[in-house]
């Protein structure tokens, strides 16, 4: 049976197995209907012109894992930023692992989506926020909505500054021959609150995994949200990340996406403005090789005056790897004095590597500052010779140049341990020891 049919036919059984608020049945049912009509996206659609899920969907994915995968702490602790100094919401094959997690209800909620969706005390919040910013017609998002059950639920009350970063990690164990997981995260950050969140998907063996995740983030007035996505999965794991962010006035939300691993990665990152004085930051570093594929599909919807958005994506593509950057900035008529900036720089290390870059600016206001720049190049010969003539071997010189190329984005990581971690991953990817602390 094809995956689409398999999903549709299992929907009723799924609905019966979960006990959620009745209102959600309607949300799920109409989401499923949308998915049924649209199906999985194909290259015929403009938004998926350069990314094909075809080969991946041929896997016979288990939709609901049968067994409870167990993992040893010792085997996975290297994926944590900290053993103790972070809140953790950890999932194994889509199921919550209380053993590995460190959740809280003390002054803030860092817990489970399944509780939030089923327990009466969360009903009001769920009614107000769940599926309110996520797309209701994008097929993969609606597929996730139809089966939404588990993920992280984070609710930061007014004026709370969360001192510890929150880690959301989804492990897959390979207990199933092939696994489809659909995490669903809901993050609400209250007025004047501040939170740092790190999200990671990690497969622990070589069985194929497809993750179709949806994250909704709501930033209330003057909230600050720093969100980091680490995509350094193994070569059998593919990820479609759908993130929707709603920003109220004077909020600062930044999302950094580090794409180093995985088979196919598609990031749909959407920002919606609902107030003045908003600041949105979208940054990314992609370093891939082999036949890896990373597609960044961003949208910043400027709907209100006096807001800023900053995009800066760097990509380094080796071997036959392929990259896509599609950055859409939409400025509505009301959004005067918008300052929107988009930068996308790429280095191709081989003749067989490909990048498709497409900035899209749709501007309906007349008093705005919008700029975009896109470059595609090779490593600079002159810089290489300069460094080599100082005694730095070719491999190290290359690595230093690539590190320097990514540095602008690395520098803006606000969690020092994470900055170190990312630079270490980059040095490992480049196969060098730099001779100084990166």
């Amino acid at each position, binding site marked *: 049976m094809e995956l689409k049919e398999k999903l549709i036919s299992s929907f009723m059984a799924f609905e019966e197995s979960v006990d959620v608020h009745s209102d959600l049945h309607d949300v799920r049912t109409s989401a499923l209907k949308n998915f049924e009509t649209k199906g999985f996206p194909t290259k015929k659609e403009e938004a998926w012109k350069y990314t094909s899920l075809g080969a991946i969907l041929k896997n016979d994915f288990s939709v609901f894992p049968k067994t409870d995968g167990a993992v040893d702490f010792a085997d996975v602790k290297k994926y944590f930023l900290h053993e103790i100094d972070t809140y953790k919401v950890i999932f194994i094959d889509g199921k919550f692992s209380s053993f590995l997690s460190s959740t809280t209800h003390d002054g803030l909620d860092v817990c489970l989506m399944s509780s939030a969706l089923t327990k009466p005390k969360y009903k009001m919040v769920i009614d107000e926020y769940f599926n309110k910013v996520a797309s209701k017609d994008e097929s993969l998002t609606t597929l996730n909505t139809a089966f939404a059950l588990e993920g992280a639920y984070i609710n930061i009350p007014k004026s709370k500054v969360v001192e510890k970063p929150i880690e959301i990690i989804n492990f897959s164990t390979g207990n199933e021959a092939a696994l489809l997981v659909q995490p669903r995260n809901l993050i609400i950050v209250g007025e004047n609150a501040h939170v740092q969140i790190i999200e990671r998907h990690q497969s622990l063996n070589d069985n194929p995994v497809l993750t179709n995740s949806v994250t909704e983030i709501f930033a209330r007035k003057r909230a600050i949200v720093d969100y980091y996505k680490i995509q350094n999965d193994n070569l059998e794991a593919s990820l479609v990340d759908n993130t929707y962010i709603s920003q109220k006035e004077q909020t600062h939300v930044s999302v950094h996406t580090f794409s180093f691993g995985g088979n196919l990665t598609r990031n749909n990152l959407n920002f919606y403005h609902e107030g003045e004085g908003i600041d949105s930051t979208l940054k990314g570093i992609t370093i891939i090789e082999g036949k890896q594929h990373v597609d960044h599909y961003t949208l910043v919807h400027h709907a209100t005056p006096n807001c800023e958005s900053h995009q800066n994506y760097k990509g380094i593509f080796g071997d036959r790897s392929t990259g896509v950057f599609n950055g859409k900035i939409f400025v509505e008529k009301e959004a005067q004095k918008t300052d929107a900036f988009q930068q996308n720089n790429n280095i191709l290390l081989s003749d067989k590597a490909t990048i498709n870059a497409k900035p899209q600016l749709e501007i309906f206001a007349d008093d705005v500052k919008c700029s975009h720049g896109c470059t595609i190049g090779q490593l*600079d*010969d*002159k*810089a290489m*010779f*300069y*460094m*080599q*003539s*100082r*005694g*730095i*071997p*070719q491999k*190290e*010189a290359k690595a*230093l*140049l690539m*590190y*320097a*190329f*990514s*540095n*602008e984005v690395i520098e803006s990581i606000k969690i020092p341990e994470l900055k170190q971690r990312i630079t270490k991953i980059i040095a490992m990817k480049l196969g060098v020891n*730099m*001779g*100084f602390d990166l």
Partner: protein
Amino acid sequence: MLQIKNLHAKVEDKDILKGINLTVNAGEVHAIMGPNGSGKSTLSAVIAGNENYEVTEGEVILDGEDLSELAPEERAHKGVFLSFQYPVEIPGVSVTNFMKTAINESRKAKGLEEMPANEMLKLIREKSELLEIDRKFMSRSLNEGFSGGEKKRNEIFQMAMLDPKLAILDETDSGLDIDALRIVANGVNKLKSDKNAVIVITHYQRLLDYIVPDFVHVLYNGKIVKSGGKELAYELEEKGYDWIKNEN
């Protein structure tokens, strides 16, 4: 120390060096002068191992070893240093980190341990003072936004850090005002010893007032057409390059 024998080189099928012969001994300063397009910068690039230039004939021998098969970094490890006419900007890499990497890679190639951090700092302090470089400079991205003079001073600072056997200064005087010229020349003179050698490549005689050469060679049309002592530089300044052109 350095012997260049019948060196021919071309870039993109254009012959530029057409049989250069030059011997440089330890303790000597050689100036190579010549009009634009005579092959001065090509000669320096070829000695340093720039792969955009193809050596078609002849040899470059350093301390008895033919350099022609060596990569630029291997030549650097053997003591060749080129001060660039146009130093390259490398955003995102600080001067300090660049120097640490360069020095430790050289040490690694020689089978030595990395230089301890405090020793490195001491060396940086000492050499930056020699070139009158502000310490704040060290944390800036290499050459990015540097003025012409700052770039050239930074080149000589790198030379001081790496302590080469053979330093080639390619048009180090271009873009320098008189104060910067004095600082750069002073730096070079202090680094000079009877164990190393300097080749100064320049269009004008001006720099040679400060870095006094033992020998002056005139390069024209890919060949050394005249050699002499430092007085040759004054003669050139007086008569201009047309004198050379007319004779050849």
